């Protein structure tokens, strides 16, 4: 059964690790990053951070499409840690 709220006690498997990886990219305390955090508006994701996240998704999650989507299609301001996990890392 899918949890209603990401990041809670019933968080999808791997989401905690993914959240920690996002914190590592940004070099911030993991406590500052939650699944609901918006990449651009809350976490100040910039172009370099998107490169690092794209490479993380390619190398660790074998997800090839995030980079092109960020560059061309996605509404990047709407992206959250949880939505990226659901779309590209789970």
């Amino acid at each position, binding site marked *: 059964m899918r949890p209603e709220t990401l990041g809670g006690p019933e968080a999808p498997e791997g989401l905690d690790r993914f959240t920690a990886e996002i914190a590592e990219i940004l070099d911030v305390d993991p406590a500052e990053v939650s699944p609901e955090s918006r990449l651009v508006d809350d976490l100040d994701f910039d172009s370099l951070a998107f490169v690092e996240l794209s490479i993380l998704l390619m190398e660790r999650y074998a997800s090839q499409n995030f980079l092109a989507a960020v560059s061309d299609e996605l509404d*990047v301001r709407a992206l959250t840690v949880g939505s990226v996990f659901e779309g590209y890392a789970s």
Partner: protein
Amino acid sequence: MDAEAAARGNGLGGREVYLRAVLPGEYEDLYLRETSGDLARRGGLEGTTPAFEDWLKQRSAGSLARFVVLAVRGHRRLGLVTLFNADMRNGHAHLAVSSFDATRPSPLVMMGCGLFIEYAFSCWPFHKLYLDVAGYNIERFSSGQGKLFETEGRLKDHHYLEGRRWDHHILAVSRDRWRPYWGRYASAVVAEGRG
């Protein structure tokens, strides 16, 4: 062999992006991009509109290398990277990077910039590359602070845009800092069979 294929064959190709020299017939388009839209206000010209000939002289003076960044998929032009004001005696040069779409993050242009920095450090014995960034553009790079570059200079209230003053940041990418940074990402950025 077309220009794109030649560029990829010359070692400037990546998995997602590649670099090629500016084509003779491309300068007018680059001029129009730099003097219109968001790039005109937030780019190096800061809203001024020089005559085409003056712009061309300005862009050519002191330029050591300049490449267009293109996407592998669709060969779409994404941005421009330039190395200029090289000081061979002291071992440094200036780097400029611009994205043709200033309205969204440009990770592909950053990947192209990575290929370009690697190219610069491989071709010439620079120990440091400088990047001048106006405060209104610094958020595009800020996550690289301490990892990719250090801020070595900051001029207070140096720029004026949209009703306020902004600092001018002088960032430095040293060869010593670049090597481990590139080592982490090269395999994902460089085309297979290279790097």
